[in-house]
C-alpha cells in the first residue's frame, strides 16, 4: 500500500516544528534566519508559507506519476512502490530538467557548489521503509501533518470534510491533480488562496512528452523506408540519365561499376 501525507491547513498553527525535524533528518542547519525563509531551497526541503490568516506547507508532492522521474535522462529519480520519489545523487548529471519540469517548482539545486546535487523531500523513504512515520508527521504537535496509507488518508480527509463542512473548502487537493499526488491538502479557503496551483491538468504530466516519444520507433522505421526509397528512385533516375548521356551527346565511357543491375 503506497504511503502518503495529509496536511490539514485548518489545524496548522505555523509552529514550524516540521521544518526543524526535516532539517535534522537531512542533517541541514536550521535557525531563526532559515525559519524566516518561506521558500524551498537546497538547504530547506519543506517550508511553512504564511498566507494572511492561513498557513500552507510546501514539500515534494511525491506525485503518483512524477514529471521529474520521467524527464530525468539518467533515471536518477525513481517512483518507489512505497510512494516516495527517491533521488540517486551519484547518477545525476545536473541537467536540471527535473527543476524545469516540476509543476510544483519543488526540486532545488545546489547552485553555489562545485559538485552540485538536486535536493528535494523524499517523504522520508528510509524511515517509512522501516515502518516509521515521516519526520514531519511524527513531530507535528497538532497533527496537521499525518502520514500513512494513501487510501486511509483519503478516507480520513473525506470524513473530516463531511464532519465539519463549515470549516472546510469542500475539496481534497492532490486527489487527481497531475494524476494524483502523495501529499494531500485540506484547506478552509479555495486552494489558490493558500498558494496551491489550480491551473494544472488532471492528466499525468509524463503523458505530454510520452505521446510524442512513443512515436519514435514508427518515425525511425517509416523514415528509413521512405528515405531509402527516395534515394533508390532518384539514384536510379541519375543512373539512367548517366547511361543515356545528356541529350545530343555521345554515351560516355563507363570505367566504374555502377550500382545494382536493373
Amino acid at each position, binding site marked *: 500500500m503506497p504511503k502518503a501525507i495529509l496536511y490539514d491547513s485548518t489545524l496548522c498553527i505555523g509552529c514550524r516544528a516540521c521544518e526543524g525535524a526535516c532539517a535534522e533528518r537531512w542533517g541541514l542547519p536550521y535557525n531563526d534566519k532559515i525559519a524566516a525563509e518561506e521558500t524551498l531551497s537546497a538547504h530547506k526541503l519543506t517550508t511553512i508559507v504564511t498566507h494572511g490568516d492561513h498557513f500552507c506547507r510546501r514539500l515534494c508532492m511525491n506525485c503518483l506519476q512524477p514529471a521529474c522521474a520521467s524527464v530525468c535522462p539518467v533515471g536518477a529519480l525513481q517512483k518507489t512502490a512505497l510512494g516516495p520519489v527517491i533521488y540517486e545523487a551519484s547518477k545525476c548529471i545536473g541537467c536540471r530538467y527535473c527543476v524545469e519540469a516540476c509543476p510544483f517548482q519543488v526540486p532545488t539545486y545546489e547552485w553555489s557548489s562545485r559538485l552540485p546535487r538536486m535536493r528535494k523531500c523524499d517523504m522520508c523513504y528510509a524511515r517509512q521503509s522501516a515502518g516509521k512515520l515521516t519526520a514531519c508527521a511524527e513531530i507535528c504537535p497538532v497533527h496537521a501533518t499525518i502520514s500513512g496509507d494513501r487510501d486511509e488518508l483519503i478516507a480520513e480527509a473525506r470524513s473530516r470534510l463531511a464532519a465539519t463542512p463549515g470549516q472546510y473548502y469542500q475539496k481534497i487537493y492532490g486527489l487527481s491533480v497531475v494524476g494524483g499526488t502523495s501529499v494531500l491538502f485540506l484547506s478552509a479557503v479555495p486552494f489558490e488562496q493558500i498558494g496551491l496551483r489550480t491551473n494544472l491538468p488532471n492528466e499525468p504530466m*509524463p503523458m505530454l512528452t510520452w505521446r510524442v516519444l512513443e512515436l519514435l520507433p514508427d518515425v525511425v522505421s517509416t523514415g*528509413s523506408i521512405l528515405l531509402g526509397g527516395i534515394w533508390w528512385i532518384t539514384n536510379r533516375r541519375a543512373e539512367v540519365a548517366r547511361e543515356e548521356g545528356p541529350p545530343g551527346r555521345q554515351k560516355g565511357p563507363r570505367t566504374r561499376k555502377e550500382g545494382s543491375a536493373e
Partner: protein
Amino acid sequence: MTAKLPKITVWRAIFAAILLSGAYATYLRIFHGLGGSTNLSDKFPWGLWIGFDVMGGVGLASGGFTLVAMVHIFNVKQYRPVLRPAILTAFLGYLLVTLGLLYDVGRPDRMWHPLVMWNPHSVMFEVAWCVTLYTTVLFLEFVPMVFERFGLHKPMEWIHRISVPLMILGVLLSTLHQSSLGTLFLIVPEKEYPLWYTPILPVLFFISAIGVGLAMTIFESWHSSRAFGRALEVPLLASIARVLAVTMSVYLWIRFLDLAQRGELHLLLRNRTETWLFALEIALALVPTALLYQSRIRRNPAALYACSVMMVFSFIANRLNVAITGMEVGSGTHYIPKWSEVSVTLMLVAFGFAIFRVIGQYFPVFEAHSLESAAQDGVEREVDPLAVG
C-alpha cells in the same frame, strides 16, 4: 620580433577581447559553480546556455542534414558546392554545443551517464543519444575532407561503402532530435506562455530547423566568399533561397493556424513583453520570406545575405523565446543572463567562426565545386557522386 606578430585588426581585437572575457567566465564557472557564473535559480533553472548554446546551436547546425538530404537522397546535385561547408558548419556546431553543455551541466564529469544509465521515457535521454550518434555521423561525413587533403584513398573507400546508410541515419537522427528539442517543453504547459506552448512544438522546431539550415548555408557562403576571395555562387544561392522562402511560408502559416485553432490570437492584442518579442521573432521571419519571393532580391548578394541574417536572428529569437521569454511569467520570476553567460556564448560563436576559417583555409571544403564542373564537362570524376561530402 614585431614582424612575427599578427597584424592587429578590429576583428582580431574583438576576438581577443571575447576570448579573454570567456576565459574569466570559464574560471568563474569552474571555481564558483553555476551560482557564481550564471543568474539561474531554482525558479529559473535553464537560461542562455540552454536557450542559445544548445537549442540555438543545434538548429543553426541543421544545414548539414538538410543539404545531405537534398544532395544525396533527393539527388539535387546542383547544391553540391555548398554541401561540404554545410557539413563542416554542422560538425563544428555540434562540437560547440557539446562544449556549451559542459558549461551548463552541473556535473560535466558525468556527461557520459545517459549512454549507460537509460531512461527511455526522458526526452533529454533521447536527445543525448541522438546528439552523440549524430556527432559521430557528422565526423564520418567530415573526415573525407581530411582523407582527401592527405591523399588517403583506402579509408576514403571504406567510408564510401557505408555512405548511403550513414546519410540516411544522419537525416533520421536529425529529424528526431531537432524536433525533440521542442518536445522538451511539452511537459511545462502551466509555465510556457501560450504564444509558444503548443502540442505541435516538435513539428515547428523541425520545420524551423530546416529553414535556418538553409539560411545558414547562404550566410556562410557569403562569409566564405569574402574570407577566401571566392566568387559567390549566386544562381545556386538564389535557388536555395527559393526553397527557404517556401519552407518559411509553410512554417509561418502553420504557426498562424496553430494560434488560431488554439484560440490564442487575442493574446497578440495585449501590450506585454511576450507580445513584442513574439512580434519581433515573426517579423524577422516574415519580412525576408516575403522579400525572397522577388528574383531581384534573390539575385542581389547583399539583399540575399541580409535576408539570411534576418532568418537566423528570427530563429535565435524563437529558441530564446521558447526557453526564456515564454517561461518567465509561468515561473514567477525574471531572468537576465549574467555577463559571464553572455561571454561564454560569444566565445563559442567566435570559436565557430575561427575554426571554420582555419579548416576552410587548409582543407578541401570548397573544392567540390570545381570537381563538379569538371565532371559536367564529361571527364570521369575522381570523387564518386555518392561519396559523402
